[in-house]
């Protein structure tokens, strides 16, 4: 017996030699929605859009409809899918975004099939496209709103030599971040951190550049890298190699071992305990058997972009596995710097010290920003 089914139907109606109307219908066990999208087929640009709900889940779902208009002007080029997911998926509803992509890609496919017909009409009518100026559509991206508890996870009067935020992102090295590296450093200094690690996505910071930043700010800055693998995101320290694209975790392990670096599983259960997922019955016993944990040296058990429950679950997993635990803010904006960090028992002066300390478990994750009485 089927447990879930989603059906989508898109029909493409040719309105004139420049324009098609895509009518999309999505129906599944949860939602039923419809939309009409008017598309300039020469420029692959959305000219108009409307939609309606037939079935929904919350009383407020209807608020999504006016936001559909924000798709007007978007063109099917570059990161179109990503833009639709951000603009429509987050401002309106991700299911409308899904149906909009279906409508647009069907229209694009249709235009290729029907191009001879369009050309023929175009020649006959000598129609020129008007109003085809480029529209500079700036997506309005809603930011994550991570949970941050007032309840400390660790009642430990551990005396740390240093507290370092091991996980943060700067712009433009991480396009998802909104903060420059200088701003990150200034904030880290302001709130009293002893050092930070730059862990931009699949990005290797140049040693000299970072040394210049250290000198400029009089502050210890260490280099890391958050690498996307087939098993999720991994924080890597002590490796110079620039990894582009997705790498398998097993392959990454080989590279890191050669470099004498370490791998920390970043937020390994992010989203796994949110709505619906608890239905899968993910238990501690099952979680500790995940293959990823064979390849990592430590686990990030305090991450600033996940929920309390996810952090607590991750902490239990790390404890059962006997792996060192770390903390990091995963900051993408100034106000998040130092929300979580890692306390080190020994003085850390460079990346080698950092790698050794984590390998030996001479560190603990800590709720830093709250403890410092800062907001």
């Amino acid at each position, binding site marked *: *017996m*089927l*447990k*879930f*089914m*989603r*059906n*989508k*139907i898109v*029909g*493409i*109606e040719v309105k004139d030699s420049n324009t*098609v109307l895509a009518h999309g219908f999505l129906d599944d*066990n*949860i939602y039923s929605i419809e939309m009409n999208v008017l598309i300039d087929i020469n420029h692959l640009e959305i000219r108009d859009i409307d939609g309606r709900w037939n079935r929904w*889940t*919350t*009383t*407020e779902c209807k*608020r999504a409809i006016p936001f559909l208009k924000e798709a007007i002007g978007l063109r099917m080029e570059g990161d179109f899918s990503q833009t639709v997911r951000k603009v429509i*998926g*987050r401002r*309106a509803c991700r299911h409308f975004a*899904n149906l909009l992509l279906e409508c647009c890609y069907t229209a694009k*496919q*249709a235009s290729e099939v029907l191009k001879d017909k369009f050309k023929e009409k175009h020649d006959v009518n000598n129609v020129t496209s008007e109003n085809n100026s480029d529209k500079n559509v700036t997506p309005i991206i*809603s*930011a994550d*709103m*991570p*949970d*941050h508890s*007032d309840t400390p996870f660790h009642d430990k009067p551990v005396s740390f030599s240093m507290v370092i935020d091991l996980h943060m992102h700067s712009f433009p090295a991480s396009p998802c971040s909104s903060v420059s590296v200088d701003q990150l450093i200034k904030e880290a200094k302001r709130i009293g951190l002893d050092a930070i690690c730059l862990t931009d996505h699949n990005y290797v910071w140049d040693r000299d550049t970072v040394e210049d930043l250290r000198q400029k700010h009089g502050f210890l800055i260490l280099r890391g890298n958050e690498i*996307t693998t*087939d*098993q*999720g995101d991994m924080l890597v320290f002590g490796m110079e190699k620039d990894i582009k*694209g*997705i790498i398998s975790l097993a392959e990454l392990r080989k590279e890191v071992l050669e470099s004498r670096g370490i791998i920390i599983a970043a937020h390994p259960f*992010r*989203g*796994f305990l*949110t*709505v*619906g*997922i608890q*239905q*899968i019955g*993910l*238990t501690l016993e*099952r979680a500790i058997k*995940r*293959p990823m944990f064979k390849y990592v040296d430590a686990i990030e058990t305090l991450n600033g*972009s996940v*929920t309390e429950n996810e952090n607590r679950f991750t902490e239990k997993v790390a404890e059962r596995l006997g792996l060192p635990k770390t903390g990091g803010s995963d900051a993408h*904006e100034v106000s*998040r710097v130092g*929300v979580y960090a890692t306390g080190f028992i020994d003085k850390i002066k460079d990346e080698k010290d950092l790698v050794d300390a984590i390998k030996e478990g001479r560190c603990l994750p800590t709720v830093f*920003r709250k403890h410092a009485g800062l*907001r």
Partner: protein
Amino acid sequence: MYNILEFTRNRSTSVEQTDDKTLRSYCHLNDTIMEAYVEIAVTIPDLEIISVQGDVLRPHKKEFKESFEFLKRVIGTRIGPGILKIVNGLTEGIRHKQFAFMLEECCHAVILLFTKEDLLSSPRPDDEEESIIYHRQMVLDNIRLYNRCAAFAPGSRIVEGIIPKDKDI
């Protein structure tokens, strides 16, 4: 010719539980020029993709086979947050992006299955007050949902009074 559709597409994605430990998610595409499917098997509860297969039923072209080999790169990954980035990354360079999209649809359907199971115990939207209380608690429990869609954005009754901490709104 007016109002006669020139091009139509149907895409159906379904999930069935084949045994205690396995889900099968199947995406079938049928449009004016092509009929194809992509199918994945996923373990429960890890949601690890253990197999991927697919075929083009119409038109038959050998060139498509290469794309299905690309899709097999996702075997061993787990469905969950970030899966889209992983699927896109692992299938980068695929000649026929349609099949990568079908793979994404298979993954979405698995997530939606669990969402459905969860919603079965929630108040219906027409039970307005109960529904708002239920969803407000859901956002409070998973604050990452705040501002993730129009229903959970400022101005919605569901998130009225909720102010995420440590965050500029």
